[in-house]
Every structure is written in structure tokens, then in C-alpha cells.
């Protein structure tokens, strides 16, 4: 008995001393950026999109001589979508791997857990491409007007919900809105934000349904939304579950217009839903279908070459990570590699030409750590396998097909006319 305890103690001692002396740091010759994200499990498509976006941006920058002659190195950790792991990884990346900036993770809860540690202890700037809980950037340091190290280049929940609800209520003219959200991940934040916005507009949701990952048949939810007289169903979730929704709607002959947040702004949705996904509206920061800028086209081509013809799992996250790296490189090129300086520098970028959008305003300010606002969002309509941007004119919402044909959207059932 005693001997086994002795062994334990020895083991601990060994661990403690072994890891007590970190390897020599190369921080001087390279620019080290850390990424902790879910690279396995259900949220991995977000994490992998972020990783690939960052890696492609870094490779491009390094191929063009790096930043001030220094190469950028990305150090990646899998956090399994767990807050505890994210916090541990951030500590490790900053303290042991000596990274000078971080890219954010895939899990809003993890960002909420790590934000105070980053602001109070680690003091290294972090740019979030994905997590959308509003409180992530509007955190305690922000409230107390202290230095806030948390930035977001992705969409934030409040903005996305405002955009989506406003589009449906104001632009499409629906009065009775039903909600259908995922019980995990951003479905939870989304649900709260959507309800808030609907109340603000004086049109509280007529039904507020949820589903979880085990649901493959959404009959109860759809029938309840239908029974409540919803004129439009707004969803917050992922491709797989959304395809179950559209197929169940088809089964039940339900033609209620259907709109979703950016979880299904990816080819995976069409692949899963097939023709049942026709007409579904999606709010997103970016659509990779339809006409693209030359810079984006180049990146899309490069992506396809690197990854054997695959298409991007999560375009908004991929491009946000891509832009985040370029933004960091730009700031580091100007202020050097001191994390505190980088943080201040990020609040002082007057203009930035990213792939998501061309920021003709300061990307971040001291009070505003969200780069994108609801004005940067677009609404897309799934049309024959493509997510085409919805535009408006005096007659109503319309899309432009590849054939340059202009088609108006019937707001009754979202078909084209």
C-alpha cells in the first residue's frame, strides 16, 4: 500500500519536474499563433474550417516573405469542444508555446470561460472566427472599460438574430414567426437572441420549438409550429438536422417558409436535404456560390487543389480565420510582436480589405470588438444547390440566377416566380 503511494508521489514529482523546464523557445525567430478548437467530434467541421483558413492564409503570407522576414507558425490544439480543455490549451499555448496571438475556438461556452482568463491573466489577443454569444466580446473587461483582449471577426449572435428577424419581419413582411432551434451549441444562444429581437419588434414568437441531435423525424415540432399559425419558421442549427426538418416538412406537405442562421450556409446542407432544401433562406456573412471577387476565386481554387476537390465545410468560419490571420499579420507588421501592442494595434486599423468584406471603417474600436455588424450580413436562398444572395427592389425580394435571369421570391412559400 505504502509502496504504491510512494510510486504515485514519484510519478507526480517526475511530471512536475519534467514539464517544469519547457523547451527552448523559438519565439524570437518566428511569429507563433495558437489555435485551440474542436478538431474531432460533431463540431469538428467548424474547427477544421478555421484551421484550414488559418493555414492557407499563413502559407500565403510565408510564401511572400512572412512578416518582417519572420515566418508565421500556427500551433494547433484540439479542445474537443470542451471549455476545460480550451482553457488549458490557451494557458499552454501562451505560457509554454509562447504564442503572441490566438484564434478563437468553436464553442461559445468555451470562449465565455476563457475570456476572463485571457483578459486577466494571459493578456494575449484572441480573434474569434466562429463563436457567436454576444457576451464573448462584451465581457467583464469591456464593461469595466479595461483592456479587452477578445476580438471577433465572425458574426455575433445579436447581429445575426437582428438581421434574420428583421429580414423576415420587415423585408418579407411576416407577422407570426415560429422558432425551431437546436438544443446544443449556438442553437441555444440563437434561440435567446431570436426571442429577444422578436419581442423588441413587438411580435413575440408564436411557437418556440427545439430539437436535439437524436431527432431524425421532426413531425411533432413542425405540426406544433403549423398549429400555432407560424407564417415563417426560423431555425438555428446545423445541416444534418435542418435536412430532417425540410424532409419532414415535405412529408407533412408543409409549405411554411423556412429561414435559418448560418449553420446551413454550407454545401453540406444541400447534399443532405436535396431538393427538399429548395427555397430555404439562410443568413450568412459569405456565400461561395454565385459571382465571386477574384481574390476569393483564387482562394477557392487553391482550397480545391489542396484538399482534393473538397468544398469548404464552413465557409463563414474559413474566411473569417483567413481574414483574421491577415489582419493579425498586418498589425504585427506595424507594431511588432508584443501581445499588448498587438491588442492595441487591433483597435487601430482604420481600413482592411478582407475576403469577407472590405472594411472601410476601423475594423475594431476600443468599444466595439465585433468587426462585423448586421449590415455585413447577407441573406441567401438555396436554389438548385446554390446559395444565391437575396436582393430587394420595389417589387420585393429577388435573386439572380447564373443565367442572369432575375427571379422574384413569392413570400407565401418562397418559390420563385
Amino acid at each position: 500500500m505504502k509502496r504504491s503511494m510512494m510510486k504515485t508521489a514519484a510519478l507526480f514529482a517526475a511530471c512536475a519536474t519534467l514539464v517544469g523546464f519547457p523547451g527552448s523557445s523559438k519565439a524570437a525567430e518566428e511569429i507563433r499563433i495558437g489555435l485551440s478548437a474542436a478538431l474531432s467530434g460533431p463540431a469538428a467541421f467548424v474547427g477544421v474550417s478555421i484551421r484550414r483558413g488559418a493555414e492557407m492564409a499563413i502559407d500565403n503570407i510565408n510564401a511572400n516573405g512572412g512578416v518582417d522576414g519572420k515566418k508565421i507558425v500556427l500551433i494547433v490544439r484540439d479542445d474537443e469542444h470542451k471549455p476545460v480543455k480550451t482553457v488549458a490549451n490557451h494557458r499552454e499555448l501562451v505560457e509554454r508555446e509562447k504564442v503572441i496571438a490566438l484564434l478563437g475556438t468553436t464553442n461559445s461556452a468555451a470562449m465565455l470561460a476563457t475570456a476572463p482568463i485571457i483578459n486577466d491573466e494571459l493578456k494575449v489577443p484572441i480573434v474569434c472566427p466562429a463563436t457567436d454569444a454576444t457576451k464573448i466580446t462584451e465581457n467583464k473587461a469591456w464593461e469595466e472599460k479595461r483592456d479587452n483582449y477578445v476580438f471577433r471577426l465572425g458574426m455575433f449572435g445579436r447581429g445575426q438574430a437582428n438581421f434574420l428577424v428583421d429580414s423576415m419581419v420587415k423585408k418579407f413582411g411576416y407577422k407570426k414567426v415560429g422558432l425551431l432551434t437546436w438544443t446544443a451549441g449556438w442553437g441555444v444562444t440563437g434561440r435567446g437572441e431570436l426571442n429577444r429581437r422578436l419581442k423588441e419588434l413587438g411580435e413575440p414568437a408564436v411557437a418556440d420549438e427545439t430539437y436535439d441531435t437524436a431527432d431524425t423525424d421532426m413531425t411533432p415540432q413542425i405540426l406544433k409550429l403549423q398549429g400555432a399559425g407560424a407564417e415563417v419558421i426560423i431555425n438555428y442549427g446545423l445541416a444534418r438536422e435542418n435536412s430532417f426538418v425540410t424532409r419532414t416538412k415535405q412529408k407533412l406537405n408543409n409549405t411554411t417558409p423556412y429561414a435559418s442562421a448560418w449553420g446551413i450556409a454550407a454545401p453540406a446542407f444541400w447534399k443532405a436535404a436535396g431538393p427538399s432544401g429548395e427555397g430555404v433562406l439562410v443568413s450568412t456573412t459569405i456565400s461561395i456560390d454565385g459571382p465571386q471577387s477574384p481574390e476569393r476565386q483564387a482562394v477557392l481554387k487553391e482550397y480545391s487543389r489542396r484538399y482534393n476537390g473538397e468544398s469548404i465545410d464552413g465557409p463563414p468560419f474559413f474566411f473569417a480565420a483567413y481574414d483574421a490571420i491577415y489582419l493579425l499579420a498586418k498589425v504585427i507588421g506595424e507594431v511588432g510582436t508584443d501581445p499588448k501592442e498587438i491588442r492595441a494595434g487591433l483597435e487601430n486599423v482604420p481600413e482592411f480589405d478582407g475576403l469577407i468584406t472590405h472594411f472601410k471603417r476601423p475594423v475594431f474600436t476600443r468599444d466595439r470588438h465585433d468587426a462585423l455588424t448586421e449590415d455585413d450580413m447577407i441573406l441567401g436562398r438555396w436554389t438548385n444547390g446554390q446559395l444565391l444572395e437575396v436582393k430587394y427592389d420595389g417589387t420585393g425580394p429577388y435573386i439572380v440566377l447564373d443565367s442572369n435571369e432575375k427571379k422574384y421570391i413569392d413570400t407565401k412559400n418562397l418559390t420563385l416566380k
Partner: protein
Amino acid sequence: MSAHMAGRWALSVGLLLLVMAPMVTPGTYYLFMLILVFIYSVVAIGLNILAGYGGQISLGHAALMAMGAYTSALVSKGLEVSPMIVASGLNVWIGMVAGTIVASVFGALLAYPSLRVKGPYLAMVTIAFGWVIWKILLEWVSVTGGELGITAVPKARIGSFVLTTPYYYYIALAAVVMAMILQRNLIQSEFGRRLQAVKYSEIAAASVGIDVYHEKVKVFIISAAFAGFGGALFAHQQNFVNPDSFEFFSSIFFLLAVLFGGAGTLAGPLIGVAVLTLLPELLHDFDRIRLIVYGVFILVTLYVLPKGVAGVFQRRPGSVAPGFSVEPIDKNRSDPAPVAGTDNPAVVSDAQSSPLLEVQGLSKAFGGLTALANFSFTIMPGQVHAVIGPNGAGKTTLINLLSGFYKPDAGTIRILGNPLKISSLHAAARLGISRTFQTIKLFGDMSSVENVMVGFELHSETRLWDSLFRTGRGRNQEQLRFEEAKSLMEFVGLGDHVNTPANALSYGHRRLLEIARALAVRPRLLFLDEPAAGLVSEEIDTLKDLIASLRRLGIGILLVEHHMDLVSAISDHITVIDYGQVIARGDPASIQRDERVIEAYLGTTADDA
């Protein structure tokens, strides 16, 4: 002694290194990981007590940890409304206490549905419990914050001094050291023996008067308290809680850590948690195949280290029993005093004429098949009453009826003149009835003397408190029990095997040990269920002498046996049954002459007698 000293030394050096760690490690990452190891260890120690020692598998421990974490987070945040409490820094500590208590309550809640189920059924109950708690945490958004959890959980403070990572490290270290000590105290006490007895055989444990349900509820509560305390520590380390930390996989992690480290060993949980928490941190390059590594790791562990890492260092047969250092008993001391019964006033003072046991018209049928019909007999103090009959005659049914395992269809049973009311299995022992089993039921690899010590259950004055904190009274009691158990073993002739694990004894010795355990109950009545089965003739002679001396002590004995020699030699009275019917009764001499007996029983089994 030198190995002992070396162990102490190593332990001290290890502890010293851990104490010094915050002074030598740079930054917070290493300390953060070590704190996690300590916290998870507290939870795993709780699980080890339940699963490793108690044999009650739990795949829902993360939920109990969650109860501690959420309660502590909510209570400590809630108390922030009072400036006085905030100034004193007490809110966090109050939260931790509340978390531990709430988790214990939930442990009791979990215990009740777990009492009657085993194996996969028990696993499922605990999984379901964990799942329900996890879902409630997700769905009850107004209180728990749902998926996004509770942020800004207050940091631990003493007065206005905030315990940042290096200071909190000492809190966690103290917690794990305390948890280790409490675990050792619990396990190496009466409580620990009872716990393991229940694990090895619930029926045998009940036969010496252990209330099995009660023990299980107790161990669930204790285990949950550890988990809850760990959870509370966790909440104030992370300053954040959400359901992700308490999902099903976390429960698997704890069970795996216990199994890998060594279930049912003191150091096991600590080793398991340390390896499983720190290893992934050293193997970041293997993130892609993490689950493969995990799976292979589990399988290899189960193959190579079936008793876990700590199991490799476990005590060997013949070494000292845990719990106390054995002081050699003075050989020259006069004969063992506390042999069963002699200090039991009930047995000695009773008038020899009043019967210990009266059975009248006892009947039992199983699905139309009569196992026992209209059976009557009495046993007087100091009398040996034998019941014989061929296989399936109803002998074991009789013992099961008398010890409360079955309910009779008809008939009365009176003990010392009072009707027998057996509400549960352990009640028989309370009435002064103890028994042995046809198929030996000892408590696995507990030492022989511990097996006997379990038998003193009913005569114990030790409280859980005494065990937990090793009070002087508890230690005295332990020493007393040990000596008593030892004299009992000497009495049955096992004086040389005090520290041998029960399952390392020879078959005959195991039979004797079972009798010694039954005697520890200090019974008025002793049921021996085929005690000679499988014994060689010298062993039967020993048994004969043993029964004879028990009779002299005034114990009434019901002997169910095949073995005619033994029965004829020591019985005062014999009842012969066949197909549940009494076919003859009388003293040994008359039975041996009875035609029907010779025909129905002796004739057919004379060869193997």
C-alpha cells in the same frame, strides 16, 4: 520495517516536491493541470470507494460532481448580494459546503433505485441518472444558464485576499491529501470491511447482520460527497461551469481512471487520474487518433494490469492486513476468553429447559412442487439437531425458511418463545441466528481475520465518525475486534492463518473460517448447511470436535448433512426427510435401525457416505 520507512520517505519527498511546485514552475499552465488532477482525484477517490471497494459500478459520477459544482457556483454567487459575506470571503466556502451536501443528497437519491439492481442494470441506472441531470442542466436555462453555463463564478478568497492559481493549488493539494486520508481511514475500518463484504456476497454479509441496503445507501452518500466536493473545487478553479464538463464521457473518464489506476486500491484513483489527465497533454501530436490511443490504452490495461497500476504493488497473501499494525498476541496469556457465546448472557443464563427454536407445521411449495410439508421440530440450548435426506429433499429450503430467505406458506417458527418475524435478510442475525452456506460464501481476498471481524457487526460500537477520523475509541475497538477474531480463529483451529486471504485457504479451512465468522455473531442458534461437504476424513474429525465444543457452550445447532458418520456421532436428534416429507425422527441409534430410512435414504446413498 525498512520498506515501510522507505515508503514514508518517498511519500514525504513526493509531497514536498508537490508543495514546492508553485515556487518552481513558471506560469500557471502546469499548476492549472495539477489542480485539475487533484480535483479529479477527489472525485475518483469517491468513485473508488463506491465501485472499487463497494463493487457498485457508477457511470453517472460526473452528474454528482455537477451537483457540487453548480450548487457551489450558484450559492457563492447568490451570497454576493450580502456585502458583509463578500468582505469576509466566506461565500465561496459556504458554497463548497452546500455543494458537498447537495451532492450527498443526490447520492442518496441515486442509491435508492440502485439498491436492487446489479451489473448492466446498475450501470444503466447510473447512466440514466447522469443523463437526466445533464439534460436538466441544459434545459433549465433560467437557473443553470443552459449550454452557456454560469460565468464569473467567484474566486476563492480568504478575507479580501484572492486565492489565485498558485494559492488555489494548495487548497486543491490539501483537498486531495485529505481525501486520501479519509479514504484510507474509511476502508481500513469496520465500514470498509462491511463494504467489501457486501461486494463479495450480499447474502453472507446479511447472514452476520449487515443491513445491505443501509450500507449501500451509506456508501453512495459518501461517494457522492467526494464527487460534490470535487465539483465545488472545480467550479471555483474554472470560475465557470457548463454542462460540457459533466457529460457521459466524463463519467466514463472517472471510471476508467479508477480501473486503470487500480480499483479497490488506495492510490489507484490518484494514479489513474494523473496519467489520464496528463498523458494527453504530452501527446498533442496524437490528437487525431486520441480515441484510438484511449481505446488501446484501456484494453492493454485490462489485459496486462487487471488490478490496475496500483494493483501491481498490492499486498501479497500472507502480508499484514491493512487497518492496523498487528501486535503479536502474548502466547503465554491464559486461554482465549471471548469465545462465542460465553460472554453472551442470553445463552448462558437461559434455563436449559426452554426451547431455543420451535418449528411447527412448516410448509413451502414452489410452483406446485412441495419442497417442505408440515415440518415440525424443536432445538434446545446445547442440542444438535440434524436434518438429513437425499438431494432435493428440502433441507436447504428449511434453512432458507428459518433464516428469512423464503417466506413459509404455512406453519409457525418461534425463537425463545417469540414468533419469528423476519422482515429482511439481516434480521435473523439480530435474533441470534447465524449460519454457514452449502456453497462457501466468504469475502473474497479479504484476509481471514477480516472475514471473521465482519461477523462482529452486531456488537460494534464504532460510528462512521470514528472510522472517518480514526478516533481513539475507533482504534481501541479495532484492536479489540482483532483480538476477538483471532481467538475465534484459534478456537476453530485456524490460528496460523490469521492474515491469509480467505480465498487462499484450503477448502476445509474455508469451511472452518465460515464457522468462525458465524460464531462472531455470538449466536444462540447456529445453522450448519452441509458443513462436511467436500472435506476429507481428518477434517471431518476436526469438525466433529468443533461442533461438540459448540454444543458444550450451550449453542443450539441445526445440522443439515449428508454425512451419516458425522451426524450419528454428534446429533442429539435426527429428522429424516424425503421429498419434503418427514419419514422418520428420533435419536441416532433408532434412526439407524429405521427400515424406511434405510430403504429411502441410506440404502441408496450408503456407497457415497
